[in-house]
């Protein structure tokens, strides 16, 4: 199970085109897709802004929108954030809101205490986090909870704010025999979930409790002959897995275990050379989600040249953004 790269697919990264694509995408608010994705608008804004920042073009977006007002309108009384005005709060969009605030230098407009309260209220006795008041549990939410708290500058107070030990213990129960991680204990290993679990353990400083080589090998085995990475064994490669897998390997200190050159070729082939943007795989429609993760992967590999800023693998934010806010998470050396 794999794809072949079309012979005429782009072979170089096209940063200028992607900036144009991203800016064009968010100003086309009268199309069906924009309307249908309102339920994730805050994340959409984060993907777009983060990608533009990687390309050094965030100022172009800042002048087109009032991010402060959007954040205000999405804040809910329970301290969390919804994806768009009028929507219920959820951990997913609360993390995205914090990421957006950092990118737009609006951290002061966040009520860190209220957000921390919202996050704490979602933790369950077994250490897991539910996404909202209804109770769905997913290791994605463990990551969202811990990452949001860290990005608010509360990283050295995690034990006070939540049951940090239980949070890590729960994540570890989601480890599978193959080295991967799933949504909940027993769930099939999946690259996206692995990223969330490694990210959570990275924030908690507990990566050494893993069989690192086994997990890193599972991740390395996601690479197919086309150079692309998949989410599970025997599934098709997808550009977004470039990020989930690569960032995980970076956090584990094993980035060299995949072929960066071949991966970059896959990402380049998934670009639209006319309108810009990156798709899940060559020939498909582009979107901001895959554009961000394709560029982020290229940045991690340091194969984007000068056109891409350095990116932090845990938080998928430019390193200079974290530096600017005094946020530091030491990269585990893998020993």
């Amino acid at each position, binding site marked *: 199970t794999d794809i072949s790269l079309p012979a005429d697919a782009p072979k170089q990264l096209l940063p200028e085109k992607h900036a144009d694509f991203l800016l064009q995408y968010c100003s086309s608010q*009268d199309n069906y897709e924009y*309307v249908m994705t309102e339920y994730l608008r805050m994340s959409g804004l984060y993907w777009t802004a983060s990608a533009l920042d990687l390309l050094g073009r965030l100022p172009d977006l800042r002048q087109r929108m009032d991010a402060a007002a959007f954040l205000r309108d999405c804040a809910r009384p329970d301290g969390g954030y919804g994806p768009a005005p009028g929507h219920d709060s959820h951990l997913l969009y609360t993390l995205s809101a914090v990421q957006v605030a950092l990118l737009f230098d609006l951290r002061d407009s966040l009520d860190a205490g209220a957000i921390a309260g919202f996050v704490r209220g979602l933790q369950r006795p077994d250490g897991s986090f539910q996404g909202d008041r209804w109770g769905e549990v997913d290791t994605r939410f463990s990551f969202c909870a811990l990452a949001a708290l860290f990005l608010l500058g509360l990283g050295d107070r995690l034990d006070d704010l939540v049951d940090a030990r239980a949070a890590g213990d729960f994540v570890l129960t989601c480890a599978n025999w193959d080295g991967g991680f799933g949504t909940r204990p027993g769930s099939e290993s999946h690259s996206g979930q692995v990223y969330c679990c490694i990210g959570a353990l990275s924030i908690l400083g507990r990566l050494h409790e893993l069989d690192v080589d086994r997990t890193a090998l599972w991740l390395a085995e996601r*690479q197919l002959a086309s150079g692309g990475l998949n989410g599970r064994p025997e599934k098709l490669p997808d550009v977004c897995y470039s990020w989930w897998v690569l960032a995980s390997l970076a956090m584990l200190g094993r980035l060299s275990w995949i072929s960066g*050159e071949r991966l970059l070729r896959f990402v380049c082939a998934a670009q639209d050379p006319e309108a810009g943007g990156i798709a899940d795989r060559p020939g498909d429609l582009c979107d901001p989600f895959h554009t961000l993760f394709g560029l982020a992967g290229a940045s991690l590999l340091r194969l984007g040249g000068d056109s891409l800023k350095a990116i932090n693998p845990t938080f998928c934010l430019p390193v200079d953004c974290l530096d600017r806010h005094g946020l530091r998470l030491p990269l585990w050396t893998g020993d």
Partner: protein
Amino acid sequence: CQSQHLIEPVAAAAMSATAAGGWVLYRDRPDWADVTPLKQDESERTVLRIAYTEKFSDVHDYLRACMRADERSQRALALTADAIELNPANYTTWSYRRAILASLDGDMEAEMKLVRGIILRNQKNYQVWYHRRWVATRLSGADGTSELELTGEVLTEDSKNYHAWEHRQWAIRHFNLWERELAYTELLIGTDVRNNSAWHQRHFVLANRNGEASGLTPDVVAAETEFALNWIGQCPNNESAWSFLRGLHLDTGLADCPRLLQFCRELLATEAGCPHLLAFLADYRADQLDRRCPLAEGETRESVATEALRLLHLLATKADRIRRRYWLFVAGDLHARHGGQMPELQEGLVQPELD
């Protein structure tokens, strides 16, 4: 929506009734005349005006109004069904629907039917599956077989649907439905031997069906080893089957099962380029060395280490070049711990990537 938690005795069906054949906008429905629809906030912040289809915006204008007033009624319930049909990914709508159902002590049987239909039309949507779970736990007298049926139906169309497998695991645990799942995984493996989800599910059942005690007893491990080897023999280049095999022997160690060595050596005769086979054999040898297992007649630690290094070299230079840095790492590590003759691994390092 004048009062909170307004409860309407009139059936929802009558309220959503359409005119002969056509869709009636909510703003044209007499039974909704008391509600002032709430338009999307279109401030000057947005660069362009947002233009929805008329039906979409009409439904959502009324939904916004009802949510603002927190109306909990049959007509609001029907309205959420319309909104969900238009955009089933909007979790706020689902959230509101649950709030209404809870207030009205809604008909969970009917709700199960509704969700089933939506799931079959939106099989990869998180919201629908969560809602199904929520309803199933509130349905009195449920025994979970409907969950196995539903996930079975979805998996027939898409045998790797992650949500369906998760839901199945939840139902099996919640309703104690372990007995026939092993057979189900065998059915799916037989249909597509590369279905990683099916192999994973098989491990899940074996490991968890005995509750706290691990289900991987020596008898089970022996039987399941033969099961896996049979499928590997038929299709050796299958990551999932090898992974399942490793999972069986994780606690005891590969070298405790000489059958594995025998099988691999036989397969090597015809599948010398299969990366999973080479890697497995290398791991078997490494396990023998790591745990200082007794070796066969004529074998020494040095000869076993040399064989492992040869396999790793083959992986790095021919069979699995894309991961050569990993194989070189493993080789270097094994050599450092156990010695053995290192093949010309420098060759593997300087050779450029082949296309």
